[in-house]
């Protein structure tokens, strides 16, 4: 029997970096969104739709939403790891979280590329 002891560095380093990289993407998009919505505003359907019909905005919005979903995965998983102690329930909650987030990514793609 191998007695492995989980101590050492680098556990979770990748997630730590992704959490910050996605945060930077979202922060930049937030500024872009505030400027664009500040200029256009959701007052008329045509103007609002034209904003997201633009290729760059469509791509940036999709990149933002994918960053949101990945960022949410790491954050929500951390919450389950901190507060939910029974292994089975924790696993179930993690699977449910990952499942809805993958679904949201598909939904987001559908919303944007139907325009």
């Amino acid at each position, binding site marked *: 029997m191998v007695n492995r002891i989980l101590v050492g560095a680098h556990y979770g380093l990748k997630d730590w970096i992704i959490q910050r990289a996605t945060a930077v993407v979202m922060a930049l998009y937030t500024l872009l969104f505030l400027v664009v919505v500040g200029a256009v505003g959701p007052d008329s359907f045509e103007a*609002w739709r034209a904003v997201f019909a633009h290729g760059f905005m469509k791509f940036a919005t999709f990149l933002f939403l994918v960053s*949101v979903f990945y960022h949410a995965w790491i954050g929500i998983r951390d919450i389950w790891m901190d507060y939910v102690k029974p292994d089975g329930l924790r696993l179930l909650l993690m699977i449910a979280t990952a499942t809805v987030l993958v679904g949201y990514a598909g939904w987001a793609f559908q919303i944007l590329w139907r325009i």
Partner: protein
Amino acid sequence: MAEMAVKKRRPKNLDLPTIRLPLPGILSIIHRISGAALFLLLPFLLWLLQSSLASPESFAAARAVVAHPLAKIVLLGLIWFYMHHFCAGIRYLLLDLHKGVELEAARLSSKIVFAVSIALTLIIGAKVLW
């Protein structure tokens, strides 16, 4: 040696009423609560985006939902959660770069986060919701 380190029992104090969080601690727990709330509201936000972009009819329907007083309160809370998560997140990124890690600077920056996020919430709420 390593095994002992793993099994070492550490003292814990999770008696919530006796814990007095300093402002950076309050900022931190709101960062977590706001993140969880934004996650839970994702389907509503995606629905709102979808409706606003699909057709003139669904756009009008989304606007009618947003115009409801109850929805306005939820959205105002949502905007504050987003702005808090945004501002506190930028503070954490700066802390990661070892900017403002001293006690005084960390306390000051948490005050700035609360002030800026609340101000942005009021400005955006006033522009978008009312």
